[in-house]
């Protein structure tokens, strides 16, 4: 048989690794202490083992939740339909949470837990940005407050929660039996970010989610406060706004003050 060109050889090898029809075995020298089949199996096995290990590392809590056998079965099935396409192994498995959602349609907590694993990992090495300190706000005039906006940390991620996956995460983290999966009674969102060098997360309600979404879109803080006034009495809205701002500063969520121009000026 005529030897393959280099490109055809590489494609044939790759097809073999991916379980696609391939005549790669014909390209391999027979002889030595192990068979061609065994030689090919070493690569076939190593390809999957490395990716399974990478998914175990990236989805540590999901792995613990599903258990070794179920997680590995899911990981291997995912690998078969998701060949890596990035040079850096770091990014392999980005679509695993969505894929798990399809595999466990009646257990939405699994995909949510996987989102939590992945987003914590993203926050870990997301871009640095120094948080502003409370004293950055002390000299602001009331005029400033009308136009000012906040840039939120680039490590921030918000996604909706439908299940008690945060409670499940904490139980696994403390090596306790996780609670039974439950649908949340109130709409909740998951806020993930990095404080200092450490990824953090907490559950937020609809009010805080709306406020943070507004700020992310560049809405001035005064307008965010006005939105609060539509939901609360003026007094309550002022308290919610002040408390929220205090929390965001403590959480190191705000990295820059922006002077958003008043639309009337």
């Amino acid at each position: 048989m005529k030897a393959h060109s280099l490109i055809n050889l590489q494609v044939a090898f790759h097809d073999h690794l991916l379980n696609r029809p391939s005549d790669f075995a014909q390209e391999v020298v027979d002889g030595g202490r192990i068979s061609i089949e065994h030689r090919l199996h070493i690569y076939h096995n190593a390809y999957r083992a490395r990716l399974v290990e990478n998914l175990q590392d990236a989805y540590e809590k999901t792995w613990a939740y599903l258990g070794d056998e179920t997680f590995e079965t899911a990981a291997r099935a995912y690998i078969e339909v998701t060949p890596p396409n990035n040079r850096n192994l770091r990014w392999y498995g980005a679509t695993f949470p969505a894929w798990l959602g399809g595999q466990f349609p009646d257990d939405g907590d699994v995909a949510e837990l996987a989102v939590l694993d992945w987003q914590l990992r993203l926050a870990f090495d997301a871009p640095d940005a120094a948080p502003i300190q409370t004293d950055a706000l002390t000299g602001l005039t009331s005029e400033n407050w009308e136009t000012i906006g906040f840039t939120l940390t680039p490590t921030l991620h918000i996604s909706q929660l439908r299940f008690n996956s945060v409670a499940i995460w904490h139980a696994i983290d403390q090596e306790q039996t996780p609670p039974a999966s439950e649908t949340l009674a109130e709409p909740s969102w998951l806020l993930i970010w990095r404080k200092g060098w450490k990824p953090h997360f907490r559950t937020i309600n609809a009010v805080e989610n709306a406020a943070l979404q507004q700020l992310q879109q560049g809405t001035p803080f005064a307008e965010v406060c006005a939105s609060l006034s539509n939901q609360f009495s003026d007094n309550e809205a002022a308290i919610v706004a002040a408390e929220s701002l205090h929390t965001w500063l403590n959480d190191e969520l705000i990295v820059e003050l922006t002077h958003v121009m008043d639309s009337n000026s």
Partner: protein
Amino acid sequence: MKPSSTSLTKNSPGFGLGLRPVHYPDFLKEKQPVEWLEIISENYMVKGGLPLDHLNKIMAQYPLAMHGVSLSIGSTDGLDKEYLKELKALAQHVQPLWISDHLCWTGVQGRNTHDLLPLPYSEEALKLVVQHVSQVQEMLGQRILLENVSSYLDYKSSDMSEWMFLREVATRADCLLLLDVNNIYVSSINHGFSAHEFLDHLPVERVQQVHLAGHSDHGDYIVDTHDHPVADPVWDLYRYTCERFGDVATMIERDDNIPVLGELLAELNRARSIAAEVLEVQKVAA
């Protein structure tokens, strides 16, 4: 012994280890008895956070070599320009002793296997690798080091030995070599060639660095797993390597079952002793 007048390599910085996150606290706490460290380039191709902070602190105390796993110098897909840009940016930040990757391919048709797959030792593969190395060296503005990988199969389309291929790549592309002594041993068992013959044919003036690592012996074949201490036959081969290549920067790679730092430092001391004994004998003989 390395003829210094014709050598293309930098003077050896001594003995080092592969930097692994589990040992960050040891390196940040106090100066450890290593002359240099090797980082996995891809681990620091991130936007921010703790990995880069640790890198900055550690590079202030130790010379670093950058070792990559994703260059895929032998892929018919060609070079990944975005990856090279990131590699160059990291190199500008780190100012490494040198930059290395593997003589292999990792993927084709836009897919990646994340494995270091062997190339056929053919004229076609040689031309492709030489062309790619030239492009990489031009972009990075320096010679790179290519490392021999372990392999578990031979291609019918190979028409030269692995050592000839390695020598031809280095000479024609004007690059340097990172000899993985464990990989040479692993492949010599898996393919039934002489590891000494392999080493005898490599150009002394182009060997900049040596890797030592452990493997898993399956009886009929050996797998390069980096999860054990360096095996005795590999130490023997390291002695022979020192005899042929002289004072070459040497380090131990451990990627799995990573022990406490002290164990790796003890292993590194064995490398120091072997190299010192060989150099002493050569000095007396001269």
